[in-house]
């Protein structure tokens, strides 16, 4: 059995029994939607509706409704795409790499983080579609057998690599998330009272019977998927970075991009997980599961990756100067002092300076501060992509073509669309699926729980107080 060193803080508070865990997590799935959830969901739908109108107009009228021009061919569209893909990195990192490294603290957050990943990738994919001049031809980017003669995709193009990377990442993440959900779905199925719930959860639980054999298979497949997704964590953003790195544009054509992008992705992904979890733990009263310990650990990851990113920024500058390539040098000079200096300095402040504040234990254990910095980090990471894309393009080789980009209401509206989509999906998830992986939390309770009850397989505390008969009481059998 895995033993946790006594010097480590316990990961689960409140002396939970298995039944407590089930009860705490399932309560939200089984109960009626709370008022807060309804308000939040309503807001998300409004945002989504507004964004959809903007998006519909963009598609109806053409990409001219954006602020792009002959010089700056990508701006908010690809910024948003990379930003969302980056955010999508935390989930798989948490569930796969941390699984392989046997980091138990991941158990409380991996479910929500993976869900976030999937929704973020959906948002990212929506920008791939959106940025196309003829999105109805998007399937041409897939290597499908076709009736167009010998037409095939261009395997040299990083955009095609992107299609493969994103679709692979999405499918693996989805499968991983779903497999992880199965034991919990079975739990809910077993507890379900309504027919519809029984049918739905039952269907998706795929006949899970909780036998030792099933658990063993579950463990195997988790490991295999973790092994499969681990390279993906690194490869997806590496490939996304190649959208830029394989080009000839100064400021894009950089070998440092893959590691720098991966670090940045994890950085922003963790920040987004922080944002989501800090809200969820309060609203769903999950403070016992997502403890300060979790928050602090994630803050440490943020500081680490933020530092990596910072070093990358500085390295880029050094190389721009050291290489003696005038175009490269100008690109970076222009980032720092050109017309978009504010975006550059916003990026530097948010991404390099702000996470360093977490060296203070007090700050990294402050929930408000963590939330604030996480927002700041995500703003900073958005600016990072904006700086890379727009400030590199707007002044590249030929000075006659230098131009400025400024967003229109449709650039903004289409970004808002992705927020609407993301939060709508996330809220649906948080209502209808268990936001914490019950099965895995139960697996770590024994080794890392504060006030560990002597008998952890007891009846849930609420039930002990006699509020209701539990649907399933192991003690009675």
């Amino acid at each position, binding site marked *: 059995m895995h033993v946790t060193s006594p010097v480590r803080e316990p990961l689960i508070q409140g002396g939970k029994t298995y039944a407590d865990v089930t009860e705490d997590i399932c309560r939200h799935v089984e109960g009626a939607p709370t008022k807060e959830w309804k308000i939040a969901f309503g807001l998300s739908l409004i945002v989504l509706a507004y964004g959809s109108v903007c998006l519909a107009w963009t598609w109806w*009228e*053409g*990409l*001219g409704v954006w*602020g*792009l*021009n*002959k*010089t700056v*061919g*990508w701006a908010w569209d690809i910024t948003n795409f990379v930003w969302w893909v980056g955010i999508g990195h935390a989930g798989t990192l948490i569930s796969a790499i941390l699984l392989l490294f046997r980091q138990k603290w991941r158990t409380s957050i991996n479910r929500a983080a993976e869900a976030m990943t999937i929704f973020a990738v959906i948002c990212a994919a929506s920008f791939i579609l959106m*940025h*196309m*001049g*003829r*999105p109805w*031809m*998007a399937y*041409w*980017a897939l290597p499908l057998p076709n009736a167009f003669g010998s*037409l*095939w*995709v*261009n395997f*040299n*193009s*990083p*955009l*095609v690599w992107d*299609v493969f990377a994103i679709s692979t990442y999405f499918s693996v993440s989805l499968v991983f998330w779903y497999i992880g959900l199965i034991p919990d779905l079975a739990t809910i199925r077993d507890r379900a009272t309504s027919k519809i719930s029984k049918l739905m959860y039952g269907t998706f639980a795929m006949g899970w019977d909780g036998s030792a054999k099933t658990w063993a298979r579950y463990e195997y497949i988790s490991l295999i998927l973790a092994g499969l997704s681990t390279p993906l964590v690194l490869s997806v953003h590496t490939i996304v970075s190649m*959208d830029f790195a*394989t*080009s*000839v*544009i100064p400021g894009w054509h950089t070998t440092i991009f893959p590691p720098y992008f991966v670090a940045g992705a994890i950085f922003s992904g963790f920040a987004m997980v922080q944002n989501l979890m800090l809200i969820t733990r309060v609203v769903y009263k999950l403070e016992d599961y997502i403890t300060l310990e979790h928050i602090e650990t994630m803050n440490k990851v943020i500081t680490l990756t933020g530092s990596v990113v910072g070093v990358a920024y500085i390295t880029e500058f050094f190389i721009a100067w050291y290489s*003696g390539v*005038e*175009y490269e040098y*100008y690109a970076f*000079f222009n980032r720092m*002092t050109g017309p978009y200096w504010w975006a550059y300095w916003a990026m530097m402040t948010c991404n390099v300076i702000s996470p360093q504040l977490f060296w203070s234990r007090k700050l990294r254990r402050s929930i408000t501060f963590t939330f604030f910095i996480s927002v700041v980090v995500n703003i900073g990471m958005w600016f990072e992509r904006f700086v890379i894309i727009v400030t590199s*393009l707007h*002044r*590249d*080789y*030929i*000075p*006659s*073509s*230098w*131009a*400025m980009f400024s967003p229109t209401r449709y650039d903004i509206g289409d970004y808002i669309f992705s927020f609407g989509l993301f939060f709508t999906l996330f809220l649906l998830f948080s209502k209808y699926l268990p936001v914490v992986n019950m099965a895995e939390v139960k697996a770590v309770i024994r080794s890392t729980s504060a006030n560990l009850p002597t008998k952890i397989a007891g009846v849930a505390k609420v039930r002990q107080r006699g509020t209701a008969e539990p649907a399933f009481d192991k003690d009675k059998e």
Partner: protein
Amino acid sequence: MENTNKRYWRGLEELRNDEKFVKEARSEFSDGPTEGQYESLVDGAGTHRRDFLKVLGFGMAAVSLAACEAPVKKAIPYVNKPEGEFPTIANWYASTYAEGGDYASILVKTREGRPVKIEGNSLSKTSFGVSARAHASLLGLYDNEKLKGPKKGSDTKVTWDVVDKEIVDQLTKIAAQGGAIRILSSTILSPSTKSVIADFTTKYPTTSHVMYDANSSSAIVKGNELSFGKAVFPTYDFSKAKVIVGIDADFLGTWVSPDTFSAQFAETRRVSSDKEGKKEMSRHYQFESILSVTGSNADYRTAVKPSQLGLVAAALYNKVAAKLGGSPISAAAIDVPNLDKAATELVAAKGQSLVVSGINDASVQVVVNALNSLLGSYGATINLDKPANYRQGNDVAMNSLVDEVKGGKVAALLLFGANPVYDHPRGAELAAALPQVSLSVSFNDRADETSSLLKYICPAPHYLESWGDAEPVAGSYSLIQPAISQIFSTRQAQASLLKWAGLASDYHEYIKAYWRKNVYTQGGTGDFEKFWIKSLHDGVYDAPSTTAASGATFSGNLSAAASGIAKKYKASSTGIELTLFENIGLGNGFHANNPWLQELPEPITKACWDNHACISQKTAAELGFEQGDVVKVDIKGKAVEVPVIIQPGLANGTVAIAIGFGREKAGKSANGVGKNVYPLAAFADGYLTFAPGEATVSKTGETREIAQTQTHNTVMNRKSVLQETVLAHFQKDPMAGRFVPKIPTSDGVVDATDLSLWNGHKYKNHSWGMVIDLNTCFGCGSCVISCQAENNIPVVGRQEVINSREMHWLRIDRYYSSDADVEDLRGLEIASENPEVTFQPMLCQHCNNAPCETVCPVLATTHSSEGLNQMTYNRCVGTRYCANNCPYKVRRFNWFKYFDNDNFDYHFNNDLGKMVINPDVTVRSRGVIEKCSMCVHRIQDAKLTAKKERRRIVDGEVNVACASSCPTNAITFGDMNDPESRISKLLEVEKEGRAFHMLEEINVRPQISYLTKVRNKDAASKAPEKKEHA
């Protein structure tokens, strides 16, 4: 039992119990229909149960038919094929573009009976290339805002017969009463038209003909009359001049006959890196107020305020006279740079020098004539015996005509190709007086500012629908023949005049007769019919020259000229002076309703769709103006409000505004674009002057965005973009000014292009390429319009240009030099006060290692086996990665649907306008990338022709639209695999010389090379720059 139930009737019929009701009451359903009783489905009479399947079937068929893309509308098969007309095969007609003194001998390409492109006529000796305006005149043919028939007052239904009868009646009455009849026109190049007017005058003897030019050279003619007794505009030959001084004469841009002058001037600017090659260039000095195209190509340029330009001529004369023993004139001393140097070199090149001035002031012209006379230019570079007819307008006569009209002395006014209410400074006076004229007729094609005030409009057809002739230069004739039958119910002005004069109104026959009598007799050979057919075929006929150019003895009154100059010019002035100039595309604004021209960026400011107040950097700073501030320019109470453009090189204390804008009744594309500044022009001694004096310039507090296609002005010292040198260095080393990037490797220093991951392409057959000589590209922009016409490039309008989304496949980059240190990246963004200017045509470079090709996910852009970078519009999904990854930024994205879209209400939005579309080139849909194809359809066409004739393509057989339009042949296109082609021979010589690839160090290996710009400046003390990358 009594029935107490209430009775209800189903209707009055039942109550009345009428017979028909009783009969039908039993059968609920009436008898079945008889055969043929129900009508067709489409008559709207309702349907029947049995029709259900029919309706369903029809509906299905209709829906599926409607779902088919692009239903063909109005496709009429050639049941009777017109003779000589083959579908998809172009027919070419030689013709002439002659509008208001602008002249070009042209070939008109027609497809399926409609003109789609204009090209230059290489047989012409007076016309070179095709100007932007001549190219764009094609679109005027398909302008659907023209009148579609005669118009009387507001009545457009009136017939020609009625109009003719009324006009003839009135003319007869007026002539009988001795009332004055005036024909007012712009310059008429056509000798037969003048003959028609003479015939008309014979019939109505009170007729007189007045010509005027909106941008007048009237005083030049006067100056020659005063100097030599010959009231002519001479022909110049720049190609024979070693030293050229231009004083406010934009001879490469807008002055009189810029294409001819450009071609001649280019001859003196072309150099070769060959050991035996030409390494001499003319030296060109320019003294001017605005930064003109000519000034920007000058070796030494001096910015002078308009009020001092006359003194420059006088001072130059005095300096030359002092050296050559001429009598000095009294003139205020003036201290401007380069004057002494110019004088010295003019004298040194005596007999091979030329001084030209565009100032419309007889005194200045007399002094310039005296100067040229001293320098022996007459008979060498100036020919008074072969006058040019481009500007025949007479300012004095025009002014007195305005007075006559105002005084009510004109009984009939016939307006022919002129719009004085718009483009004459006294237009407002004229507009007020015109209603008094009892008979007023316009031959203009639309109810423009003047025509709308006249009683009749008898619209003349477009020149491509007309017969005509022209004599641009004495003894050089050319013919206009229709390339399409008349689109609307129009009639040529000449035919109208002939008809009203009671003569046979067939103008075609008239020209023929005229030529038989007057042109054929000037050395025509063979019988006349053959001569006529040959002239029609060639488009031009040059009468054998009888007299050699001779010198001329100056007999003008210099002291009178000197006092004339002293009166108008002063050595220093502190106020802000206004000067007006002509925009190279729009010209005098007569044809302003042309979206191609409106969107053609002005070569210097790179602005379009507006005119602006151009102000120098220093003056703007003094006045506190910023670019885009709307300022009020007020001169003697006449004011316009226009936005400011900060224009380096403009004389300080000067504000310059372009004419040709601010039309009110020209059509959708022109109305309200910019401000009309003709009213601000003035008259000095009866002659039109575009430098009307000091103006007050004040901020209005508003700002207006400026539509510029280039917003960054300097080249940032990027040697791999622009390579230039001075002549002295070039003479020593043909590689002077070249930037050759080197990379140090473990194997030593190698060329940047030696290191590659690419395998390269093998071109077994052709390898198409281009060489662009920066030394002979003067930036006029004719290639831009030629490309636009050839390749169906949409017009996007002012807002989209502001959004940096113009679609031109070919642009001309214009760079100013900067005084800043090369390390000072901020300083390099600021242009010098009087910058050196370089023009660089920029189009798809057809890279061999094309960055665009690798990144396209769907292989929409690929490499051809002949060196072309091809764009497959159909396959494009519009990711725009190719455009981002293009180091030259030449790819254009269709942000919107630019055809059939009311937001882009230009020629692509109406059926007539769409006739201009070249059927060989796809009209691109929304959401795809497009770019220069190197006119691949032309290449393909030539290849097919060659294949049918079982031979290889001959060099010169195919030319691209930009190259063929260039008056100076700055662009050489051809097959680089053919060792005999011009391009191969040129590259052979220039490979180790001036030829460079742009951005060589990124090793994209373009198919297009540039030749370094060589300025004929004295070498600076520092050694030739040859920066190496290490």
